[in-house]
């Protein structure tokens, strides 16, 4: 039993952490409803009459709308493909012994050890020779190289925590490997799959470097467009913040939808 002062300190700590992490978010959202003068006012204006002008401006801009659609296409396709390709790989790595397994495992992890900028030029050249510059496909492919390892990594761990007895019981029940994967491992691995899907989505949605290097006009993604406001002689803070808010929304919604699968103790009751 914790003391009352302990609980109070705990609560204060939590409030501070929440305030610290949410304040920038608050600043972005509130600024998106301010005029340029209100944003630049010092001291900051805590109370103001909100305006929707910034949103009207960005949604009137075909570039922004297109960018968001592009981002949605790229992030959704990447996430779906990463999960579809990564989970069977994770199943194999978690449950089978085969030659070169540990090397393969290391390769999956080491994929994330390289700094993306190191590969930017070679990737650009490959994309150019393959005539893939400024297409959705090139972004999806390059994001998959980052996201499949993440899915494999997280989901393998999740699959390993499923008692092997369950698989053997299913084998005796007459289930083949694919059925075991589909009926036992996928539902029980849902928390890990959900986490890895969120990571995939966020990564693909936020990625800036490759999006900047590999796209021109047609498939610019949202982060690329948001930064493009920063060129020229003025900084339209209101539009930047409004774009930022719009960019954050889909990720938040996606995370909320998926997070209901992130319940712990899903395998409880399988074994004593």
């Amino acid at each position, binding site marked *: 039993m914790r003391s009352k002062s302990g609980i109070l300190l705990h609560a204060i700590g939590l409030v501070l952490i929440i305030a610290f992490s949410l304040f920038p978010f608050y600043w972005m959202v509130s600024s998106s409803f301010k005029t340029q003068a209100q944003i630049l006012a010092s001291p900051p204006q805590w109370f103001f009459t909100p305006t929707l002008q910034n949103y009207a401006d960005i949604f009137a801009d075909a570039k922004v709308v297109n960018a968001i659609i592009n981002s949605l296409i790229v992030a959704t396709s990447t996430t779906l493909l990463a999960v579809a390709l990564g989970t069977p790989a994770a199943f194999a790595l978690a449950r089978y012994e085969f030659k070169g397994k540990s090397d393969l495992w290391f390769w999956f992890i080491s994929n994330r050890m390289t700094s993306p900028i190191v590969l930017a030029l070679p990737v650009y050249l490959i994309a150019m020779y393959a005539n893939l510059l400024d297409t959705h496909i090139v972004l999806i492919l390059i994001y998959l190289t980052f996201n499949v390892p993440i899915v494999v990594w997280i989901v393998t761990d999740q699959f390993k925590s499923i*008692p092997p*007895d*369950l698989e*053997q*019981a*299913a*084998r*005796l*029940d*007459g*289930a083949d490997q694919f*059925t075991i994967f589909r*009926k*036992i491992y996928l*539902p*029980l691995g849902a928390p890990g799959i959900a986490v890895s899907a969120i990571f995939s989505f966020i990564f693909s949605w936020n990625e800036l470097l490759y999006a900047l290097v590999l796209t021109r006009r047609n498939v610019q993604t949202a982060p690329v467009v948001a930064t493009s406001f920063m060129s020229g002689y003025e900084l339209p803070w209101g539009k930047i913040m409004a774009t930022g808010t719009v960019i954050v929304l889909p990720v938040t919604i996606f995370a909320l939808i998926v997070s209901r699968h992130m319940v712990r*103790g*899903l*395998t*409880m*009751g*399988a*074994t*004593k």
Partner: protein
Amino acid sequence: MSFLQLDTIKKTYGDVSVIKGVSFAAAKGEFVVFVGPSGCGKSTLLRMIAGLEDVTEGHLYIDGKDVTYEEPAKRELSMVFQSYALYPHMSVFENMAFGLRMAKVPEAEIKTRVTEAARILHLEPLLDRKPRALSGGQRQRVAIGRSIVRHPKIFLFDEPLSNLDAELRTQMRVEIAKLHRDLGTTMVYVTHDQVEAMTLADRIVVLRAGLVEQIGTPTELYDRPANTFVAGFIGSPKMNFIKASVTGVGSGSLTLANPSFVGGTLSVETVSTGRVKAGDTVIVGLRPEHLELNAAQPLLSLTLDFAENLGGATQLYSRSEGDIVAIVVHGRPDVKPGDTLRVGIEGRHIYLFDANGLAL
């Protein structure tokens, strides 16, 4: 031909030999128990029958068919795991129906069979629950139910009761015995608990270090253990062993010497006089429940160490000259630590083993 036959089955993991050649046959409807200490290979053997472990050498036949390399599902067996291995994301009904769905049994038939199994195992009110909402005993029943619905040729049980508390274990033991009586299916049951082995088995296979020590009915193993290992394993508390030297070999009797014996010597009737000679060491086996206090013709003179009152019976731990002897007596004898006990036994209850532990 036997219903289940193991023909010099061997299992090795790399250089480690786990099962070193087990041959055994069970008749249809028989309840066979594999018993032995942990690490003896009994679970591995069961999993080889199930098809979950490969057979390194030897052959396995079920119902006259060689299934050594057959897929687990095609062997038409079902297994109750020590951990139950219930599918946690499925309801009790779905857990039991899973195997039938895999076998593409019609939905109406699935419903009939699951309902029937649920009735037998008193699971009817729980069919919609998930395993996590069940108690240990209920999970155990579901695991058994999942086996029953498939109408397997053989039931395999891998230490199914070891996760239950003592009371529930006794209750489930009785239920499994009833189930065997009602279904009449061949059952192979693995346990390290000799009480489960004695009470459930038609025949017991005693294993040690990957080898069969003895196969027989519970009574045979209790009355005529092949060696000191089986003698010590079957029966609780375990048999007392006292080493003695042979001082005289008569026709149909041996004279043995040990300071614990009253008068220093003991004459035992045996038919195996030809296998020992004077000067040999033999092991005398005495079951605690056969020993009696205040015998008219005492055989051992012992000092009481301490007594455990079990209510209806008392366990006495006594010693003499380095031998520790346990005695079980009915009621509560009026003795206290330090007392000298004069203990007797009927001649027919004396077991004799040679120096290597083999029965004489």
